[in-house]
């Protein structure tokens, strides 16, 4: 596959959230508002790109039998370093994204892409895969958050969309709302795919 194809496949065709169904926990937790969704998406993309590169670099020195523990060590160490560096050098960014960093460690997109892609492909393609998958994750989160924030709070990215008289549907912000929104969106995407 070409570099461009690797870059774009994560957006729709192999979207990590809607199609591969990875990283459900952070999707449900952080899609309550568009700002959170974008913050989480960006932090995850950053870690994903870096971990994909690292895993791709060490793929030849890691024995197959212990690859998963090695990946976990590499990713966890990496995320912790990013967390500390951000807190020390860019405290403002850390304030808005720092909340999501512990969630990234448990984001299975990172480990999933390391296992399914980066340990079989070269560094350049892994980089493209990381960017594409990260963008797809950000896009998916933003779409889910758009529905949840407008219905549950009447705003989009903090801007008021619904009239003041709108009575927010609180359920959209709670866990059931996340499941219903996500399920409906997945069904829609499958429907569109079948029609093609």
């Amino acid at each position, binding site marked *: 596959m070409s570099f461009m194809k690797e870059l774009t496949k994560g957006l729709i065709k192999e979207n990590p959230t809607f199609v591969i169904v990875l990283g459900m926990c952070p999707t449900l*937790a*952080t*899609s*309550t*508002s568009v700002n*959170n969704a974008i913050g*989480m998406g960006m932090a995850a993309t950053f870690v994903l790109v870096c971990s994909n590169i690292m895993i791709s670099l060490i793929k030849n*020195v*890691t*024995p197959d*039998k*212990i690859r998963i*523990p*090695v990946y976990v*060590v*590499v990713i*966890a*160490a990496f995320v*912790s*370093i990013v967390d*500390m*560096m951000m*807190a*020390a*050098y860019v*405290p403002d960014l850390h304030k808005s994204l720092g*909340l*999501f960093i*512990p969630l990234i460690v448990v984001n299975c997109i990172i480990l999933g892409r390391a296992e399914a892609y980066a340990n079989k492909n070269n560094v350049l393609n892994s980089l493209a895969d990381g960017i594409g998958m990260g963008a797809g994750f950000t896009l998916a989160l933003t779409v889910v958050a758009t529905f949840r924030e407008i219905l549950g709070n009447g705003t989009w990215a903090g801007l008021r969309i619904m009239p003041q008289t709108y009575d927010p549907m*609180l359920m959209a*912000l*709670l866990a059931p709302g996340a499941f219903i929104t996500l399920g409906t969106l997945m069904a829609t995407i499958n429907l569109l795919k079948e029609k093609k």
Partner: protein
Amino acid sequence: MKFYLKLGLILLAFCIVATALLAYVNSITKPKIAAIKIKEAELAREELIPNSAFEEVTVKTGKDSIVYYVARDKATKELKGYTFTAAKIGYSSNVKTMAAMDKDFRILGIKVVEQAETPGLGANCTDSTFTKKFRGLTPDQLMVDKDGGKIQSMTGATITTRAVTNSLREQIALVKKDVEAKLAALPAQEVTP
């Protein structure tokens, strides 16, 4: 046997490298992070009671100790109030709140300085829509509405609301006790100069 030993050693090597890296990064970032935290605390105090000079007071209560700051007007040296930090475990993190109160122990303002609650729900406790609910309340009113107090809990985040409210109430009680004990111990002419 040899094969498994080799696997273990490789994993050990990865862990050692990762640990060494983490230790190194931690050693260079720790003082910087600590300095940023101190500065943030100073800014937060200044925001809660502006134009004041703060004096740190540390009190030993059994094993623990509490720290609070006495705020006096920079020019007139008049007593303006007290600031302190209260913390309690919320839903998924330790919620730290900085609060200021006037000399009658009424809340002047609060600021949630550290939390990692659920984004969109508990994490809304840093919003001014939530923190301004505390303004002007006396310690007795500091209770979540479900427990019979004046604080309306945040949607889907009663536990976070409770953590903030209860930690403040408990900390105020501690500070108040100490302040009153110190006032009582003072000679009369110093209280009314």
